[in-house]
C-alpha cells in the first residue's frame, strides 16, 4: 500500500498557511482577517495531524489539534463580539479605522 509521503501534507500545510498570512496582511475587512487567521490555524492543525501520523504511537499531535481548535473557537467568539462592537461604533468593518491606540 502506497503511503502518501509526509512532505505532501507539509507542503499543503505551508501553502495554506502562506495564503492565510497573505490574506491577513492584505485584506481590510475584519471578517476576512478572521477567516485568514482560521486558515492559518487549520494549516498548523494539518501539520500536527501529519506529524502525528508519521510518528505513530501516543497521538500527542492530536491532543494539540484539539487545543488549537478550542483556542480558535474562543478566539472566534471574542473576535466576532469585538467585530460587532466595532460595527456599532464605526459603522464599518474596515480594520484600518480601528486605530484609537495609535500614538
Amino acid at each position: 500500500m502506497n503511503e502518501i509521503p509526509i512532505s505532501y501534507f507539509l507542503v499543503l500545510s505551508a501553502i495554506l498557511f502562506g495564503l492565510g498570512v497573505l490574506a491577513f496582511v492584505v485584506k481590510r475587512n475584519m471578517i476576512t482577517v478572521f477567516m485568514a487567521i482560521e486558515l492559518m490555524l487549520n494549516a498548523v492543525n494539518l501539520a500536527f495531524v501529519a506529524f502525528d501520523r508519521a510518528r505513530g504511537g501516543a497521538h500527542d499531535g492530536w491532543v494539540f489539534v484539539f487545543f488549537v481548535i478550542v483556542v480558535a473557537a474562543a478566539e472566534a467568539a471574542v473576535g466576532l463580539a469585538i467585530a460587532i462592537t466595532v460595527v456599532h461604533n464605526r459603522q464599518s468593518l474596515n480594520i484600518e479605522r480601528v486605530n484609537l491606540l495609535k500614538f
Partner: protein
Amino acid sequence: MPIILNNLWIIPLLPLLGAAVNGLFGKQWSQTRVNAVGISSVSLTFLAVIELVREYLPLPPGVPWVRSYAPWMIAGTFRADFNFQIDQLTVVMLGVVSGVGLLIHIYSTGYMAREGGYYRFFSYLNLFMFFMLTLVMAGNLVLMFVGWEGVGLCSYLLIGFYFLRKSAADAGKKAFIVTRIGDVGFTIGILLVFWTFGSVNFGEIFKQAGGMPVEGATQIGGTLTIICLLLFAGAIGKSAQLPLYVWLPDAMEGPTPVSALIHAATMVTAGVYMVARMHVLYSHAPLAMLVVAIVGAATAFYSATIGLVQTDIKKVLAYSTVSQLGYMFLGCGVGAYAAGVFHLMTHAFFKGLLFLAAGSVIHAMGGEQDMRNMGGLRKRIPVTFWTMSAATLAIAGVPLFSGFFSKEAILDAAKDGPYANIYLWMLGILGALLTSFYMFRLLFLTFFGEQRYDEHKVHVHESPKNMTIPLILLAILAVSGGWFAAPTMLGGPNYFENFLRPVFETGAPVASAAMAENSGAAETGGAALVKSLLAPGVIVALIGFLTAWWFYIRRPDLPKKLAQSMHGLYTLLLNKYYVDEIYLAVIVRPLLWVSTNVLWHTVDEKVIDGAVNGVATGAQGLGGELRQIQSGNPRSYATWVVIGAVGVTVLVLGVWGMVR
C-alpha cells in the same frame, strides 16, 4: 567635692537648652516667659562659672584640667574627642563671656521689648553663648573650630535679624563670607597641625611644640611658621583685621545688643584668644609673631583714622573695635600674650558698655544713629551719659581706668619687651592718640553742645531699669576692671599677668619666660608713679581729649573748615579709603562675572544642562522615530510579524545550521 569641674559639660549645655526651648516653643509665649528661659539659662551658666572658678583656683597652677566626655571622630590615627580644658586663660574667658553675656541678655529684655521676633532673638543669643563657651573651653582644635564656626553662624543670624531690610541681610552674608575666607586658612592650619604633631589635642601639641627648636626670625618655610600664619589667617577673618575687617562695620546692621555682645566683647576676640591659646607655637615662630604684630599695629592705626570722621555712632564704635582688636594682636605679636588677653577683658567691659550706651542713646532718640542729629543729651539721659563717659575714659587710656592698664601693658611690651619693635610702638601710640580723639568727639557730639534734633519730633527719654542697671554694672567693671594691674603704677606686680603666667610659661622658649620676669619696672614708689602717669600713652590721650574739646566744644565751626581745607583726605577717610569699592571692583565684580558668564551661562547652562537636555532630546528623537512602527494598522503589525518569523526561520535554518 568639685561639682562643676567634674561636670564641665553643664556650662555650655545650659544656654543650648535655653536656645532650644525658646526656639521651639517661644513663638507662642509671652515675653515674660521667653525672658525667664533666656535669662535663667545664662544666669545659671554664670553661677556655674563662678563655682568653677572657686573650685579651680585652689588647684596647683600650670596643670590644665582636662576632661573628655565622649569620642567624636576616630579615623586611623586621627582622633578628636568632646573634651574640655580648663586653665587660667579659659577661666578668664569664661568669666568675660558669661558675665558680659549675662548683662547684655538683661539689657536686651529692655532694648528688644518692642521688636518682632523676640523669642527668635533670645534663642539665637543663647545659641551664641553655647558656641562661644564651647570655643573657649574646647580641649582640641577641632572642637574649638566647631565653636568658632558656630559663633560665626549666630553672628550671621543676628546681623541679619531684621532680614526684611536688604542691607541687613546683605551685611549678614558679607560677615559670613568674608570670615569664611580666613577660615580656609584656619582649616588648613588645623590639618597641618595634625600632620605635624599627630594630634589635635592642645596638651599633646604644646608638649611636642615646646620641645622643638625656635625657628629663625627670617626663616620663611618653617613648619611652625606656616601653621601659625594659617591659623592667624582665621583670626584675621574672625577678629576683623586688615585686610578682612570690612565685614565688622557692616555688621552694625544688627540690633545693638548684638553689636555689643558679638561684635565687640566676645566673638571678635576669639581670634585673639586663639593666638594666645596657641602661644607655644607662636613663640617658636618669631616670623609669624612679627606678622601678627605688624597686622595688629597697622589695623590699630588704620581703622582709628577711619573712625575719626564717621558720623554714625555705631560705625565709630565699630572701627574703634577693629582698632582695639589690633592692639590685642599687637600685644600677642610682641610676646605679651597676657597683656593681649588683659586688653581683651577690659575691652569687653568698656566696649560692651559703649555699645550698650550707644544703644541707649539710639533708644532715647527713637532710632536716630547719626551723631549730627544729636547733641546736648547730657542732662536728658544722665545715666547713659555717665556710664558712657566712664567707658570713654577707659578706652582713651586715662590713668586708673581699665583701658589704661591694659593698653599700657601692650605698649610697654612693644617698646621694651623681648620682641620690641619701635615702629610698631609708634603706630600704637599714634593709634592711641586717634582713639582718644574720636572717642571724645563721639562723647561731645552726642552729649554736649546745642541740641540738633527737633524737640517736637523726638521724645527723648532715659532707658528703663533693665537697660540702665547693666550699664551701671558694666561701668563699674570698665572703671575697675584694670585694677589687677594697679600695683604696676608703683612698680609692683601685675596680678592679672601673674595669674595667667602658668599658662603662658608652659612650653614657652626661654627668652619669653625670662621676659615675663623682668617686665616689672625698675623704679619703685614715687618715681614709678610719675613715670607711668607721664607715659606717652597718657600724654597722647590728653592731647586727643584737648583736641576733641577744642574742635567740638570750644570752636564747633572748626571741623567743617578743616574738612574743607583738607578736602581730599577728609573724603578719603569718610569713604573708608574706598576699600569696599576696591574689593568690589577687584574681587567681587570679577568673581561675579566669572560666576555669571563662565560658571553659570557656560558650565552650568551649556555643559551640565546641555548634557542633561541632550540625553532627553536624544531619547525623544529616537522615540519619535521608533513610534512610527506603532502605526495602529494591524496589517503593518502583521507584516512585521511575518518579516520577523521569516527572519527567525532563515536564521535557524540557514545561519545556525551552517555554524553547526
